[in-house]
Every structure is written in C-alpha cells, then in structure tokens.
C-alpha cells in the first residue's frame, strides 16, 4: 500500500540549526558561516580581520576541518576562544556538530562567532548550521570560472570576499568576468577584494562585519 509521508529528510539537521540560532539569539551573538574551497584563504582572512575587531567585539571561532588542529592553532595565536570541530573525513559541518562546539564556548560572553566551514565549495552550502549570515570566499588562485561552476556556494551569501588579489598579475583572473557571474547568481551580496598578506581590503571587511553585527554589550561589560 502507498503511504503518504512528505517529510523533510534533513529534519534533524534543521532542528539542530534552529536550536543553535535560538541559543545564539538569546545570548545576542551574531554568527557567520564562512564558506569556500580548500585553500581559498578563509583562515588567513580571519587572522587578518579578527585583530581589527578585537577592540569593539568579543569574537570566537569554531574551526571545521577533516583532520588536524592546524587551523585552530592559528586562531588560538590571535588570543580568541577557538574550538576545533573535526568531521573525521566528512565533507561538511552539520548543525549537530556545531551544537557540540557551542557547548564548549563561552557563548554568553561573545558578540561575534565565526564558523569556518570545511574547505569544500560544494556540500557545506547545503547545510544550515544556525548562522545568521554567510560569507563565501573565492581566491584568485582558484580561477575566475569558479563562481559559475559552484554557483550554490555564492547564491545565499550575504558577502562575497575575493582573496589573494595580489596574485592577479601572475594569473589571467578576470575580475569583470567573475563579478558578472557573481551578480547573476547573487545580485545582492556585496563583493570585496582582499589581500590578507598585506592587509589590503581588510578594513572594508571589518567595517562590513561591524555594521552587520548586533550592538556589542562590551561597553557595559567594561
């Protein structure tokens, strides 16, 4: 016999994501899911921008990786709370894993939480983690065809950051072509060009983050 079901297959993930968002809302924390391929420059971007935010926001990072604590060690060196989430070979973070990470963070003492997703331009985009905003990262080294090839990575981004722009002279990366593709996929997201190594473009990123975060309660804490 035929049984009508009509159930969301990702119910478990979506429930956990909703719980995460509620928890973050209650604690007045803005949460950003940072997405991009392996080597796109996500960690370098955090290393560059977090010091600029430290005076006005209390920041922490959940670091998603398949293996090793290399990225968490880089964030730890900045002096902000960091928890390494290891997927043990899994290609994306899910909301349940993030939930476990949240329990290990002083989230009631935070203003901004970055979740650095597993380096992968495909699967992570399909999983809601409970974030409020998405930042998608594309490096010049990956090539200007990647926006068109991985459109879903950019479709729901609130901000798109092009990284390693100082490499442009050594490549045939076409900013106009990639901007056209990105605009087609996501007409609304702001697009920033950055060079984490020499801090170019990091100020506008910091300004964007400050303007998209809830007001910090840092003043009242001090």
């Amino acid at each position, binding site marked *: 016999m*035929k049984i009508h079901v009509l159930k969301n297959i990702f119910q478990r993930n979506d429930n956990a994501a909703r719980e995460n968002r509620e928890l973050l809302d209650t604690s007045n924390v803005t949460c950003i899911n940072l997405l991009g391929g392996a080597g796109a420059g996500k960690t370098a971007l955090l290393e560059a921008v977090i010091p600029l935010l430290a005076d006005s926001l209390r920041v922490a990072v959940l670091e998603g990786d398949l293996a090793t604590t290399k990225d968490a060690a880089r964030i730890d060196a900045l002096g902000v709370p960091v928890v390494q989430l290891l997927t043990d070979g899994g290609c994306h973070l899910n909301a349940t894993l993030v939930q476990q990470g949240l329990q290990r963070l002083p989230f009631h003492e935070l203003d901004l939480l970055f979740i650095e997703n597993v380096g992968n331009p495909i699967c992570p985009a399909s999983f809601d983690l409970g974030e409020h905003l998405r930042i998608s990262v594309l490096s010049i080294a990956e090539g200007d065809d990647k926006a068109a090839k991985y459109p879903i990575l950019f479709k729901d981004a609130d901000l798109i950051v092009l990284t390693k722009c100082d490499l442009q002279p050594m490549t045939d990366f076409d900013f106009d072509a990639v901007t056209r593709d990105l605009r087609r996929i996501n007409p609304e997201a702001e697009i920033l060009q950055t060079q984490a190594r020499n801090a170019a473009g990091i100020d506008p990123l910091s300004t964007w983050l400050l303007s998209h975060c809830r007001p910090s309660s840092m003043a009242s804490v001090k």
Partner: protein
Amino acid sequence: MHEFAIAQSLIETASAEAQRVGAQRVTALYCRIGVLRQVAGELLAEAFYIVRDGTLCETAELDIEKTYMQATCGQCGQAYPIHDWQWDCPVCGAETPSVTGGDELELVSIEAEVADEDSCAQEHLSAQR
C-alpha cells in the same frame, strides 16, 4: 559525500513510517530533491543500496524526482522557473523574486507491504484522523 547521510535519513524516515502503520517491508521510496541541494542522484542511489541492508527497506527501490528552481515575482505574483540564474520576472521584469522551489529534500511517500493490508490500512486511516 553527504549522499550517505541523506540515504541514511531516507531509510530511517521510511522505516519509522512503515512501523507506524504496522508494515513489515518497504518496497519503494519516492523522494523529491531540488537542484539547490547538490545531491548526485547516482551517488545517492549507490549509498541507498548499501545503507538499506538489514533495515525494513532492505529490498526497497529508490525513486528520485529532481526538481528545479522556481520563483514567484514580488511585484506581479507571477510564478516562473529560473534557468541559468535569470531572476527577472518574464511578465513584468521585476528583479525581486522569492525562490519557491529547487531546495526540496523530501520523502514524499513510500510503498509498503503489510501482512493483513485491510486492517492496517484501517489503522493508518484512524491514526490520521
């Protein structure tokens, strides 16, 4: 690789539904998956045939209906499909659509076998009431 997680979830959901109506065996699962979910149909089928062993879905077939991006115009209310990231409304030209389809990830229905189909069907109906 998330195809395995989806296969697992499909089987869990289908098995729970089958148990709820007293069915012994699931023979088919009908699911609907939107392009925005980036699920590879062949990989999902492969994962499904591995994960189904030892479950109520052990002999079940998997039917995947692929769905595409749909939108509704924020200005004139026209519903239209989105191809190649062309967001503009084909009727009024507005660029303010809300996406209404393409992100489905649903188990729509299952086909299940029960020992005494009449009494179970009755039970199922009364459970729905």
